[in-house]
Each structure stands twice: as structure tokens, then as C-alpha cells.
């Protein structure tokens, strides 16, 4: 058991610091990414969640703060992930639908917060959040398939964001759903699985930021390597 706890701690530490990868890369390529809304969004998300994860123990001191922490975690995670696909999806109708679904989800979360008894985590909002984000991801992929561009899918930074989030949600979906009905020991034993999915997600987000930085407009291509062409 102690061994398992140690492994879990290692994963937890790795996870905490992998949250710093996207903001650090964003900072490194800030000149190129200054205008990229999704770059700013992912960097802000990662930085926010780095602090949330880092100070989890000091924030969750009592039952109420724990409840507030987990629900806020779910809410902000939904907000940031939805933001990414809101900017990536082009269909206006779908964007409107995302907005309506988000409003409904937020209302549900508020009601859930005040009405439902909290046990370990907010399984139901997490489940709904996961399903909604999965739907957005599927639509994003569908849109990519519908309008294929000249370049490979992996040259699109959003592909990396979507795949990372997809792996994270798939890897943590069942454990989050079953967290309130499983034994405490089992939860402890298997919780590190969510850390692995989370670490993979952070790495994919970082790759996405790198791909985003590599993408440059056509005119940039001509601007570089220019010989002396000024007037004097």
C-alpha cells in the first residue's frame, strides 16, 4: 500500500509540473503566439490548474471547501476546454449550440452544488462535462474531415489539444463516475490512472502549443531570409 502511495505521489508530482509545460512554451514563443486566442486560453488554463493542483491540500481543508474546490475544478475545466473548441469550430450554429449547452450545464452545476449531497467528488457534473466535451471533440474532428485542408491533421495545433483532452477524458471518465461508489482503498489504488491521463493531456497540450508556434502566415515565409532591399 505504501509502495502504491509512493507511486501515486510520484505521478502527482509529475502531473503538477507538467501543467507548467504549455505556459512555459507559450512564454518562449510569446512573440508568435501573442495573437493566438487558443494559445492564451491553454496557457491560462494550465497555469490556473497548476496552482489549483499544487495547493489542493491547503485549499481542501473542510468538507465545504472540498466541495467548492472540486466543483470549481470541473467548472473551470469545462470552461477552458469548451473555449478551445469554441474557437476551433467554424459552424456558427454549432457554436450557438455550445453556448446554450454551456449555459444549461452551468445552471445544472449551481443547482447540483446547493441540492446534492457531496461524497468524494462531483461525479455527475464530471460525467456530463466529459460527455459534452467529447461531443465537441467529435464535432471538431467531423468538421476537420468534412473540410480537409492541404496539410496533415497533426499540423493543426487543435488536433493535439483535442487528442490530449480526449485521452484525458477517456482515461478518467469511469474512475470519476465510479468514485462515489467504490471503496476508499480502491480509489486510492487506482486514482493514479487519472494522473497518467492528465500527464498525457498536458504533454499533448504542450505539443499543440509548439505546433501553433511553428505555424506562421504565408507572408512570414517571404519576410524571413530577405536580402537587403531598402531604399538607400
Amino acid at each position, binding site marked *: 500500500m505504501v509502495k502504491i502511495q509512493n507511486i501515486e505521489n510520484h505521478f502527482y508530482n509529475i502531473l503538477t509540473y507538467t501543467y507548467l509545460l504549455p505556459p512555459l512554451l507559450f512564454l518562449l514563443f510569446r512573440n508568435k503566439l501573442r495573437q493566438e486566442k487558443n494559445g492564451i486560453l491553454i496557457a491560462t488554463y494550465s497555469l490556473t490548474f497548476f496552482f489549483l493542483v499544487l495547493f489542493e491540500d491547503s485549499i481542501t481543508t473542510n468538507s465545504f471547501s472540498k466541495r467548492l474546490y472540486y466543483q470549481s475544478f470541473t467548472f473551470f475545466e469545462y470552461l477552458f476546454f469548451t473555449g478551445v473548441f469554441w474557437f476551433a469550430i467554424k459552424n456558427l450554429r454549432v457554436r450557438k449550440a455550445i453556448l446554450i449547452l454551456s449555459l444549461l450545464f452551468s445552471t445544472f452545476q449551481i443547482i447540483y452544488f446547493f441540492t446534492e449531497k457531496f461524497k468524494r467528488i462531483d461525479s455527475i457534473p464530471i460525467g456530463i462535462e466529459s460527455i459534452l466535451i467529447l461531443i465537441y471533440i467529435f464535432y471538431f474532428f467531423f468538421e476537420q474531415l468534412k473540410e480537409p485542408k492541404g496539410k*496533415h491533421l497533426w499540423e493543426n495545433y487543435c488536433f493535439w489539444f483535442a487528442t490530449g483532452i480526449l485521452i484525458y477524458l477517456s482515461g478518467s471518465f469511469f474512475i470519476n463516475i465510479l468514485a462515489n461508489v*467504490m471503496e476508499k482503498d480502491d480509489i486510492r489504488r487506482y486514482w493514479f490512472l487519472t494522473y497518467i491521463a492528465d500527464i498525457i493531456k498536458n504533454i499533448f497540450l504542450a505539443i499543440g502549443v509548439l505546433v501553433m508556434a511553428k505555424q506562421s502566415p504565408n507572408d512570414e515565409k517571404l519576410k524571413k531570409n530577405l536580402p537587403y532591399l531598402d531604399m538607400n
Partner: protein
Amino acid sequence: MFLIQASTTTALFLGTIGMLVLTIGLVVFIIMHQRRVQRFQQKLQQMEIEQQKMMLNASIKMQEEERQRLAADLHDDAGPLLATARLYLNENLVNQDKVNQLQSIFQARQIIDDTIQLIRNISHDLMPPTLKNFGLESAINDLFQKISGSGTVNASQRFHDYKDRLKPEKELLVFRIVQELINNILKHSNSSFIHLTQNVHADKFYLRIHHDGRGIIQSDFEKLNKSNIGLGLKNIGSRIRLLQGEILFEKDISQTYYKVTIEVPKDEPYSS
């Protein structure tokens, strides 16, 4: 109790593994499908490009051949004919009185001289002899001297490195692009100066035109290129495509000049 617990754990594992397999499967399927579609599209695009290139090449070649033929006809036939007409006129006026004779001769000569000059101009416009004989630098120099000669616009040019000339067909295309750009500047920009700079870097040949009038930026160029207006810009676009080059319209950082930069692959050196 134990059974329930075991089934929960099994559900957790099976569910998670199932979800992950589905996820990875979905991503792999999307990548594979996209690659297949892309390969098909690439093939289609390649064929389209080839066809367009062939058509464009044929049309430009035909145009240039026609222009050269016209130039030769005007220069070799019309010129000498008019000159001979002038001689005949001189002969037939011998029997008139002196004052009228002199006046008619003077006027006839004047008109014929103008006609010869006009034909020469047309001929030069169709196929600039300087370009053919002395290359792009001299042709652009000639063009700019003519513009400066008008007195309204100060046109200057500087070739930094043009030891290795472009191939004649490339020079002609570049010259036509410059001509079109200069025409547009003179027609629409209301600028007081035009400056052209040339340089090379690695295997690329660069030209940049600066002017201080009203201009366009890349987004305007792309918009006009797609619209029904702006035939001249479309010609520039198709010539650039034919040269496999790039063109960039932008405003100077100082916001006082507009710049047009042309990048053309150099190929192997061509000696004149």
C-alpha cells in the same frame, strides 16, 4: 459485498480500457481517412495545376509570339514604307511654287516623322528591345527614365547583384509584372516617387518597389484577386504562379511607404 466491489473494479478497468481503445481507434481512423482524402486531393490538385500551368504557358507564349511578330512587322515593314512615302512626297512636290512646296514638305515630313516615332514606340512597347538585348536591369532603367522624364514622378532603381541574369522568358515575365505594378502605381496611387531595389539571396531573386502614394496590402491583393475586378492584379498573380514565385504587398513600418516584394527562384545562371 466482495462481488459488488469486484464488479465495480472490473467495470472501471474494462470501461477505461474500452474508452481508451475507442479514443485511439477514433484518432487513428481520422488520421488514416484524412490521409486518404488528402492523397486523392493532392493528385487532383497536381493534375489541375499541371493543366493550368500548361494553359497559362501556352497563352502567354502565344501572346508573346504575337507581340514579337507584331513588333517585327511594324518595325521592318511599316517603318521603311512610311520612309519611302516621305521620299515620294518630296519628288512630287517639285513642280509647286516654292513657298507652298516648302510648307507642304515640312508638314509631310513632320507627320511622317511622328508616324515613324509612333510605330517605333508601339514596337518597343510590345517587345522592349532593351529587355531583349540588354536584359532586365536596362529595361527597367529605360522604363524608369521615361517615367522620371515626365517630371511628375521621381522613379529610381538600384540593382545590387544582377551578375547572373535570369532566363529571358523569366526576365520577360518579371518585366511584365514590374510594368503592371508601375502602371497601377501611376494610375491609382498618386505617389511622388517610385524606387525599385533588386537583390539576391541563396537561390532566390528579389525585387522590391517602394512608393509613397496610396497602396494596397496583401489582404487587399488577395481580395481583388478573387473578385471580378482587378484584371491587372490577376495577371500579376498568374505570372507569379508561373514563375513559382511569391509576391507580398505591405505597408512600411514607418507607415509612409507601400512596398511590393517579389521573390523568384533563380535557376541556373544565364549568360547573356
